């Protein structure tokens, strides 16, 4: 009796809640830590990025319009589904070089990070906004509102870094187009599957695999992208920042970051715009 032949997964992009192949028909090889072939990955193109931005744009206002409680629940649900698939993620991290302990810790931290961010959904407005005591008869309130569509060039930490850059934008009501780290893209595909089977509306998070160096410039120059996180940008970070100036994207520059530490609020604040509303007080 011959051994059963495994059914392998085709790794695809995640755009608008669907899993298309790259429109370009291109793939690249995901390798393990030893350089052994793991899978063919869809190699996202500029047109895939364009489609992802379009999907993000159309999903964003609906997502921002959800109640904060609901956004919190939806994000919490990501943690629930991820917890359920932790073994798969541990294995994927091990394949790209983590020890069993490291991989397990990374997944734990990631699930916990998601829970942490879920809890911000109905609180960040209170912490980042405030009433303003103006010296004239006006009610005056400042609240953070989502910036819009945020592009993320994910850092090389393939799971914890990925989630730590996506979620602060998402929890604040933005929609995200993320380019996963090219060297270890498989966890990003798993994350996309987790998103697809949790309650995140299609288009709120769009995951592209491929080359950040290739796709990054298209996202940086895209006039309908409002912000860009360069966490995973390469040596072209400066050029990406220059391209981002054309529509004055909010830019999060590259910096040395410890993804295991509890985040500060700068990423939450980064993807919000403070809106101040005035109204007369009179009878």
């Amino acid at each position: 009796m011959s051994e059963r032949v495994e059914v392998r997964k085709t790794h695809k992009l995640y755009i608008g809640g669907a899993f298309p192949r790259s429109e370009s028909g291109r793939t690249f090889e995901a390798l393990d830590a030893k350089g052994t072939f793991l899978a063919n990955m869809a190699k996202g193109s500029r047109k895939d990025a364009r489609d992802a931005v379009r999907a993000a744009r159309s999903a964003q206002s609906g997502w921002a319009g959800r109640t904060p409680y609901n956004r919190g629940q939806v994000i919490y649900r990501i943690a629930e589904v991820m917890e359920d698939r932790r073994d798969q993620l541990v294995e994927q991290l091990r394949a790209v070089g983590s020890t069993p302990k490291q991989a397990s810790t990374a997944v734990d931290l990631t699930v916990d990070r998601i829970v942490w961010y879920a809890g911000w959904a109905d609180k960040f407005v209170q912490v980042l906004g405030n009433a303003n005591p103006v010296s004239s008869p006006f009610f005056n309130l400042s609240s953070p509102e989502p910036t819009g569509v945020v592009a993320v060039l994910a850092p090389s930490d393939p799971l914890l870094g990925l989630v730590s850059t996506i979620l602060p934008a998402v929890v604040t009501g933005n929609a995200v187009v993320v380019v996963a780290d090219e060297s270890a893209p498989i966890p990003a595909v798993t994350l996309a599957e987790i998103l697809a089977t949790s309650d995140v509306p299609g288009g709120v998070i769009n995951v592209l695999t491929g080359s950040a160096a290739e796709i990054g410039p298209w996202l940086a120059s895209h006039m309908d992208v409002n912000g860009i996180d360069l966490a995973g940008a390469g040596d072209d970070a400066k050029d990406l920042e220059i391209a981002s100036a054309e529509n004055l994207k909010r830019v999060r520059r590259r910096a040395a970051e410890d993804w295991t530490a509890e985040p500060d609020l700068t990423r939450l604040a980064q993807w919000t715009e403070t809106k101040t509303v005035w109204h007369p007080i009179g009878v």
Partner: protein
Amino acid sequence: MSTETLRTLLNGLPGVDQVGLEARAASLGTRSIKTDSKKWAIDLAISMVDLTTLEGADTPGKVRALASKAKNPDPTDPTCPATAAVCVYPDLVAVAKQTLGAAPINVAAVATAFPSGRAALDIKLADTQDAVEAGADEIDMVIDRGAFLAGDYTRVHEEIVAVKEACGPAHLKVIFETGELQTYDNVRKASWLAMDAGADFIKTSTGKIQPAATLPVTLLMLEAVRDYRLATGKQIGVKPAGGIRTSKDAIKYLVVVNEIAGEDWLSPDWFRFGASTLLNDLLLQRQKLTTGAYSGPDYVTLD
């Protein structure tokens, strides 16, 4: 007009934003009126004064003194204009009339159970007729604020119509007592209600309730007469009363008249100040402009 129609009319008026209205009034209050324009404005203001005494202690002697002052506000300067009117209680109309003689100065009488307006309609009408028969040229009536605040606009309307009829040839000024109506929305409603009911003038206050006239409330009433004329072709006058004591204040009101209603209202026929002490301050300022030196209270008459 049916109750429903009246309600619809009044509730359909644009709202008034308090802060915006008061800011506009304050901004107009910063106009700087100097030299020739100040001189002109002071004379105009004097000619718009309804020189008023409305005290329980009023006597024929007091009213005679007031009427003499109205005819000849500054005895040292014959170029000083006379006031527009004297304003008294109905029982003193005859005294005022007699003192004024042929002078082109009107006698205004407060009627309709002034200042509270709390009396039966027939008493208010009798009060009005009494004043008119005594020779009053103008009747300053008060609206029934209780009825207004209770939403009984029809009753307020009907009373004004009835008083207007009782006035005969006398001009009718309708006092809202804006300090009791409290909101600017109410003042706008009262203005349209009174104009529709036949008021010749709309007037802010009795002078017995604080706040009396204010710049914003007057501005609002000037908007109302401006809009009413645009809508109907009929021009109505405005009279702020109470609390206007200085020339500086009076000039601010004239600026508001000028820039809100327009120059058609810059005449005693269409704008009055209900005041008593204001007149002497106008005279002091007038003397300062004439002589170049600051004057003092001993150089105007206390009546």
